[in-house]
């Protein structure tokens, strides 16, 4: 494969008598090298995107492709009145409202602690906090299911020993969201590392100047750390938000795809999976996928719009 591609631009080299301007030759080479990505983009991203939009306007079903009909926006109108969709959106939002602040806060907190100038063994400690990212999600969820078990799990035994209430983490419609947020703590590694790099880029002179001016730790945090970290925090926020709307593996492992307790973990992506691959309503599932896409896109755009006003970029406007 390498050899054949190498021949192509060489054929237009001066040796064969055809002279190409260097700029044209360079551009050709550029396209040769990014070629694999362009092909992948067309085959696995752009093409399927268009196809899924068309699919969302039909009643397509993989088992009976012959009876496919164009049904216009029927899938979308059906979605608007589908109680499962409404419930799954509500579940996703409830989860997001707890999980996102917890993840953002924990990853910033750990970053500040593990970047503290007086802390010894920073490297090994950072590696330990990062480590759970490497654990297969199914395995880490199984560990947490055991850890959070009402009777035999350690968390409730510890809470009981401290005389605190022992919630039924996994089987309660309310406690399931804090429980899933706790499971999500094991995924903060990447965000923590990014935050640490962000903290290290804040000039220490700023903190010294603030201290000279009599600013306390909280004021320095709010007036220096947060504004200077805002691009990094925004990046983390966007990635966490997208991850929350695509939440699947943990919820699926928890209930074997059933969405228990009482559909509290039937997140949007689980509904999509069920409609598309269990019930074979592919057209409807495609419409759900587009709903998800539009939600993520709108939220991202809103965030970036907000960022334009509030996020500080050291190099000026980006």
């Amino acid at each position: 494969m390498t050899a054949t591609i190498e021949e192509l631009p060489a054929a237009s080299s001066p040796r064969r008598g055809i002279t190409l301007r260097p700029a044209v030759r360079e551009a050709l080479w550029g396209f040769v090298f990014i070629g694999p990505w362009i092909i992948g983009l067309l085959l696995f991203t752009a093409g399927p995107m268009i196809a899924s939009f068309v699919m969302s306007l039909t009643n397509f079903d993989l088992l009976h492709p012959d009876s496919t009909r164009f049904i216009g926006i029927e899938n979308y109108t059906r979605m608007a009145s589908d109680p499962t969709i409404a419930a799954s959106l509500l579940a996703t939002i409830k989860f997001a409202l707890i999980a996102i602040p917890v993840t953002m806060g924990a990853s910033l907190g750990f970053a500040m602690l593990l970047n503290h100038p007086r802390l010894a063994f920073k490297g090994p400690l950072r590696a330990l906090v990062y480590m759970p990212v490497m654990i297969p999600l199914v395995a880490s969820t199984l560990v947490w299911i055991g850890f959070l078990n009402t009777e035999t799990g350690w968390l409730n035994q510890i809470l009981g020993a401290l005389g605190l209430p022992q919630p039924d983490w996994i089987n309660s419609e309310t406690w399931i969201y804090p429980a899933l947020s706790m499971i999500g703590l094991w995924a903060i590694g990447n965000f923590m590392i990014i935050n640490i790099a962000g903290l290290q880029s804040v000039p220490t002179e700023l903190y010294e100047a603030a201290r000279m001016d009599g600013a306390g730790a909280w004021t320095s945090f709010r007036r220096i750390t947060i504004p200077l970290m805002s691009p990094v925090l925004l990046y983390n926020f966007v990635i966490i938000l997208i991850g929350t709307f695509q939440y699947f593996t943990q919820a699926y492992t928890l209930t074997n795809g059933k969405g228990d307790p009482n559909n509290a973990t039937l997140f949007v992506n689980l509904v999509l999976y069920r409609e598309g691959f269990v019930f074979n309503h592919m057209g409807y599932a495609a419409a759900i996928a587009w709903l998800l896409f539009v939600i993520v896109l709108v939220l991202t755009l809103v965030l970036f719009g907000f960022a334009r006003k509030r996020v500080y970029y050291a190099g000026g406007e980006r």
Partner: protein
Amino acid sequence: MTAVARTQGRSITDRSPVARSYRRFLARSSILMFTLILVGAYLLPLLYMVTTAFQQPGQSTTPGAPVWPAIPQTATYQGQPYPVYSVPMPDGSTRSLILIEPGRESSVFIDPADASQTPIEWQGRWRTLEQAWTFAPEIDNFTVAWNTLNFPRVLRNTFLIALLSTIGAVLSSVLVGYGFARFRFPGKNALFVILIATIILPFQVTLLPQYVMFTWLGWNGTWLPLIVPHCFANAYNVFLLRQYFLTIPRELDEAAMIDGAGPFRILRSVIVPQSIAAITAVSLFHFFFAWNDFFVPLLYLASKPELQPVSIAIQQYNALYATQPTLIQASALMTMVVPIVVFLLAQRAFMRGVVVTGVDK
């Protein structure tokens, strides 16, 4: 804490170098202690997993059983095994005694250390006594889970899928990263923006047509849908590699060009040898992404046990054996050994890679 306050109180010694270094030591050790406790709590579920994986089946639901893997202690009396209890004695001490004759209001015990084996009559209800436990890790949990899950097959599948998709992903990403780092072509900036934008594109939007396409190609139930789409580069890898390639001085390329090297030759003998660190990071990231992936294998391999990777296998195992936490935790432990060991050996490369993709964007 109090020690800090006390040293601060002594205003004269306060400024002495000894007092200062003592205070610094206190500050350092207290922040280290705090961090260790926090990180310990953060990783406590792992300790739960290891402990449970070695426990006797049913131990966690047995009243009075300790947390550590243990079985009730027994001792032999006249050739027969009898349970051992910790018995509070009238003098206030507690002794480990063998219960040979349980009775309603009083029981007969034997002291295992007593050679004459004089029976001890004890007043009280033996059911209120605490049983003595002895440390006994249960290795069978691992052998049972290993055999039921067919771990050798599952691990081989996971390894091969991850390896093949990593080779495809890294080769293609190196080419594309090189293209974006070194060549000028029309539409380059727009294409780069599109590349980065694919990061926020939810995979669900392309999922269903891809599934239909792969099913029509007859790839459903094979490894191909898990490998082929990765052979066309992805945004994270390309971005990381491009950033790295940009730091390699162009003079090196130009020197090679004067020696008659073409772009492929330059990539092979200049760029790649200079970027082994970045290529290692990308390879490790992708390898473990593929190792841990769940959704795509679930779609294409749910009904093909002989081709499944470990994440699907243990999920299905859990669905069947959820009532046996010892087996589940043993299987979870076996699943995470490889990624954790590799990570701890190569953690520098990992974390540097995260910083490049996350911060430079």
